[in-house]
């Protein structure tokens, strides 16, 4: 089920080019996505949610990753997938935006990393 979902979204998003919007209708929702080199970050939201707010939420998240991993690349995300989850949980929870301040998120992440 989960794999099928990923494939569907993949097929929908990767065919789009720079002249397209960053929004795609998907089932009864819409996907807001942003491309960074070969990586796509996608968020699925309700149709009446604010597109641009989520588009920038993605970028805010990516900037945090970049800061946290010091110039993040795909490999960092693969090898430290369990840490990426921590970053997600700091910034998004229950499908909503939890914290938007990069300084606060990074401070918290640094604390966590120093723990055993």
């Amino acid at each position, binding site marked *: 089920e989960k794999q099928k979902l990923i494939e569907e979204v993949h097929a929908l998003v990767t065919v789009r080019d720079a002249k397209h919007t960053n*929004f795609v209708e998907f089932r009864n929702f819409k996907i807001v996505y942003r491309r960074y080199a070969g990586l796509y970050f996608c968020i699925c939201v309700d149709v009446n949610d604010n597109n*641009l707010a989520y588009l*920038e939420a993605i970028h805010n998240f990516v900037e945090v990753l970049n800061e946290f991993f010091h110039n993040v690349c795909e490999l960092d995300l693969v090898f430290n997938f369990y840490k990426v989850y921590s970053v997600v949980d700091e910034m998004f929870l229950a499908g909503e935006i*939890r914290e*938007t301040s990069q300084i606060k998120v990074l401070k918290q992440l640094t604390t966590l990393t120093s*723990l*055993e």
Partner: protein
Amino acid sequence: MPNMRGDAMRGLAVFISDIRNCKSREAELRRINKELTNIRQRFRADKTLDGYQKKKYVCKLLFIFLLGHDIDFGYMEAVNLLSSNKYTEKQIGYLFISVIMNSSSDMKQLIIQNIRNDIQSRNPIFINLALQCVANIGDREMATAFTNDIPRLLVSGDTIDPVKQSAALCLLKLHRTSPESLQLNTEWTARIIHLLNDQHLGVATAAVSLIDALVKRSPDEYKGCVNLAVSRLSRIVTSSYTDFQDYTYYFVPAPWLCVKLLRLLENYPPPEDPSIRSRLNECLDTILNKAQEPLKSKKVQHSNARNAVLFEAINLIIHMDCESSLLVRACNQLGQFLQNRETNLRYLALESMCLLAASEFSHEAVKKHQETVINALKSERDVSVRQRAVDLLYAMCDRSNAEDIVQEMLTYLETADYTIREEMVLKIAILSEKYAVDYKWYLDIMLKLIRIAGDFVSEEVWYRVIQVVVNRADVQSYAAKIAFEALQAPACHENMIKVAGYILGEYGNLIALDPRSTPMIQFELLHTKYHLCSPTTRSLILSTYMKFINLFPEIKLHIQEILRHDSNYRSSDVEIQQRATEYLRLSEICSPTVLATVLEIMPPYPEKQSPLLVRLKQKKPLMEADTSGELSTAPISQSDDGPKLTDTAMHLHQQQQQNGLLVSLDTTESNGHYETSASSSLPSSFSSSSTALQTNKKFLFKNSDIIFENDILQIGIKGEPKKSVLHVEFYYGNKTNFNLTNLSASISLADELDPELRIHMEPVQTTIDPRAQIKQMGTIECLKDYRDLPKMSLSFFYSNVPQKIDFLLPVYLNKFIEKAEMDSNNYFLRWRNLDKPDQECQKIFAAKFPMSHDACGQKLEGFGWSNLHNIDVNADNFCGAGIFHTSAQQVGCLYRLEPNKQAKMYRLTIRASKAGVASHLAELLEDQF
């Protein structure tokens, strides 16, 4: 890389590298299976695994799972990790549970116990981990288990900010999964609302989402949040971006919090308190002003963040729909975006403008951008943007621009993407019908549409064309002419053949005198297409042939020959065979008169809602707010089966059943005399016609009734007939606890130029106090007999939101009938004198109610005329008389109603001295017994 210490799990890194180095899927699978075997052995054999090793293996399992493989063991080890007092071990344990564990796990109680321990611990990091896990899983058991703990964390003074953030969203998740098991103490309401004011913007950001959900559940309880949200918003938008330091994102102060606050306010009508309201308006004004300032950065992040807030502000402005200056400014701003080089902005501007087009304040402002929108249709590369352009054209269309817009859409259709063609066809069909001034234009458009879009023309569309033609006698000969011409095209889409076939069958006689389209030519032309068609179409064409036999007896033999032909008479298709056989037999045994009756032209279709609108709605489940306004309210009418000749008798019967008294509602609409009732199309506007539809037939038999009712307003009518003048009193009752202000009521006639009624209404008070009723008096004078009911239009403000209600005033013709008493001789003498065909109308219909003699008598007297006894020899029958008064003349009316109890049927015969009156009265009464 972050600080990699002993917890870096080298084994995991090695394993991940191995997987990435695998050259093939098989190699990967082998490596995974090897690892799974290894982990299984470790878990089974080695009871003395330490925390680090458990963590490492559980983490590997997680990675394997994320690659798309099933994991069916290791759960116990993961749960064990939860009770570790090391953060890294606990984190992996929680992660595994959140990602992999399904809800049916029998370890649920154990997990819940571990979570409870962490929530009650004094370590905020552990509390947060536990809360995040609950927020990620959030099932019913957890909702029940933590119904007290989590709210307490949220409102307690001791809780640190990050925990509050998690607790708020955790609660939101539990509220979504299981609202019933989450009962929030009302004492906490105020404290939860006050989180909006929290010094920590992160807490406020998280809390707004929770409050938004709670507001949706109990808006009144949380009403206090409006004030706080407005002041918080105001402090943010009027501040400088430097005030918020770490919450400023690319020079925009707290954009996400602003968006959330604006959305929260969209749950309520505009604030009633004038000071809050003006503060909110200032905020919105400031946001619009900021959009005009030069950009502070060239980075797209800056403009996106700014515009995220702007679009949400525009949504709120549209939602409030009362500040026309804001609406127009919003529209101008969006107009600028239409030309922006960012596709995202153009897309979003088109989307928002669709909503603005529905507001009466901004509809005209939107229309200024017609040219740009049409260009978007032609030049945008992204189909979803073109789709929005189509939506907007549809929304901005009105009588003034309909011809242009329909023409542009038609042109675009030829090259449009397949994915949106069907919807476009529907939209073109709806617009060209709705705004047709000249139905010849409508028909031209529709035939062109069928020619261009062929396969994308759904059944509803061509059914509808036929319905329109059947219902409008003035275009029938034109329809026959252009249908005939369309058939002459060498390649003809099957849908075109269906439409043309049907129309010629009904109205081919209207063009038969033209030597270019004699009966034989019509028949032969149609028949050249016959063999290329599907069985369904051939069945339809057979019906057309049968109709030809009636219209053109001179070609009967040719048609019988076709019917007799093996390919029809012995067709493998059952429907064709049956039609061929039955039609042939019918044509052989029936006399021309019987045939003429059976094959009579179709009577007008009764209408409630255009099936096209129903269809369009099905096509667009995503459309949240309906832009055209009329879809949202009307109940879905019966789905009309395609017109079929064999059903004539049945159809007639159905027609009588459905031919309610309000048919005129739709005919007026499609005649375009006025916009549909919900034309203001406010998100909060109410369905108006539905309630009125059900009740107002009662007014036929009574002189007082409730003629309209919704959640806000109840309208009653009381009438006192005096010959040709009806004295009326309207009662408007305010059902709410708020004032209704700016009330105005007007009554308009279907045909203003040639009025059938003269209506005079006293001025009405403009305000109705809460739970109060006001009265309006007036007179309605009947100038001549009429069919179309006058329309009542009401507008008022309910908590500052404009409301509009339109409905038909059920003042039927019979209100002007005065009863007449007479004896048997007199009655029959008059009856016999009214013997011209148009003076009599007879209806036979099935009983809809139990056949009670007394109830019938009461209804007939309530209708206005007399119920005379001892006139008919059969005491079960009813006879009576009345005088229908107009200011110019008096029309004598006589009736006889004969119940047949065995058959549960009635026969109603009415005679009236003026042509047409009898049939109108009969229509009013059939179906009422």
